[in-house]
């Protein structure tokens, strides 16, 4: 006897009317399988008849999950994309740019000034040096040298007109000569370096007189005083000094 397949038995077991196939009357094995399958499905259907979760179940479920639910309406609207200019304006960029522009202008002005000065003949120091080399010392040099020459002239005049001096009389002259001596050395060196031979020569001879007066008081005493004055040729030196001072004055006026 040919048995029904399991699939056929399963299909027969699902008949809604619950009728048995005629084969089962003849085949005990297939009938047993059929009954077993029917019983399984009946058990399953019975197990499916479950009670609901009871009243208030939905509320309990919602309460349990509520805190995990995001609120969709709270999503912030997307901000329109800001242009770089708007960002620049609101973030203090303009102030920064202004400050940077000022710095650039300042630097440019400084640079332009330097270039202008260089084209005009170098820096202030170089100008003074260049003028000195050309025999044209600047106004400060003129004033200082002129003052030195004036003081020296006054000292020489006092020496020229002084007779025999006592120890007390010659004290101020010695101190003045000593003061002038140091300045004179500096001006002489400067005049020699700036190629002004006339001034350098005068200051050289003036220096020797000042040394004599400051360190050898005997030149101002007794007969030796007259002799010393002749040796120093104070009159000639005074004349030269005045000529040179006049020349300095005229140069200063031109400047």
């Amino acid at each position, binding site marked *: 006897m040919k048995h029904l397949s*399991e699939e056929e038995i399963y299909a027969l077991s699902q008949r809604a009317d619950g009728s048995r196939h005629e084969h089962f009357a003849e085949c005990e094995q297939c009938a047993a399988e059929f009954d*077993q*399958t029917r019983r399984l499905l009946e058990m399953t259907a*019975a197990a*499916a008849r479950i009670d609901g*979760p009871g009243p208030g179940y939905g509320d309990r*479920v919602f309460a349990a999950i509520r805190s995990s*639910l995001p609120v*969709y*309406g709270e999503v912030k609207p997307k901000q329109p994309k800001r242009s770089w200019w708007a960002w620049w304006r609101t973030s203090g960029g303009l102030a920064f740019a202004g400050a940077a522009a000022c710095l650039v202008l300042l630097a440019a002005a400084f640079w332009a000034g330097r270039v202008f000065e260089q084209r005009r003949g170098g820096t202030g120091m170089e100008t003074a040096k260049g003028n000195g080399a050309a025999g044209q010392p600047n106004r400060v040099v003129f004033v200082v040298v002129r003052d030195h020459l004036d003081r020296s002239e006054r000292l020489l005049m006092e020496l020229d007109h002084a007779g025999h001096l006592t120890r007390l009389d010659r004290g101020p002259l010695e101190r003045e000569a000593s003061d002038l001596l140091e300045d004179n050395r500096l001006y002489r060196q400067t005049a020699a370096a700036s190629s002004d031979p006339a001034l350098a020569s005068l200051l050289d001879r003036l220096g020797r007189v000042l040394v004599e007066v400051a360190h050898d008081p005997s030149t101002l005493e007794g007969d030796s005083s007259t002799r010393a004055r002749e040796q120093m040729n104070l009159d000639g030196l005074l004349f030269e000094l005045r000529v040179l001072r006049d020349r300095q004055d005229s140069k200063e006026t031109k400047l």
Partner: protein
Amino acid sequence: MDITDRECVEAVLAGDRDAYRHLVVRHSASVFKTACRMTGNEADADEVVQETFLRGYLQIRKFELRADFGTWIYRIGVNCSIDLLRKRKRQGAMRVADHEEYGEMSVQAVDGSASPERLLLSGELEWKRRAAMGRLTEVERAAFALRHMDDKSMEEIGELLEISADSAKQAVFRAVQKLRRELEPLRVKQ
């Protein structure tokens, strides 16, 4: 006036989170029953229901307002149930009853001519059935439960499990075969 499912979904999307409560109250019982049938116990079903409605809320932007929310959430519930079954299987928690423990057992108390109601009276038999269900694969178990507990057609099962109707039919049949063999020692002696 009762608010419709569609209005609830729209309210939720507009920022009214509590509008979702109406949907949960309305559909949680049916999801619970299906989950209970698939998982076999109320505790797991409860977990499935919460996971289902949480997942539904998070995916509610994908819900098409023309569709039926009940069907949509039911499908999510089935997927959540399958996920839980997989999880339980990994954890080994499905071994409610050991096969060997009942393998040698032959229940003689049940008469062959007994009505289905009498069969159900046997707690042992029901226990055996549940244990056998636990040894099915997730797809077999889901397909069988949907077919014979939720009365879904093969097409609906295929759609829910994202398989073809033929595959769904095969899955249900394999489940029946396995269950029948598992329950064979319980064959009522004539």
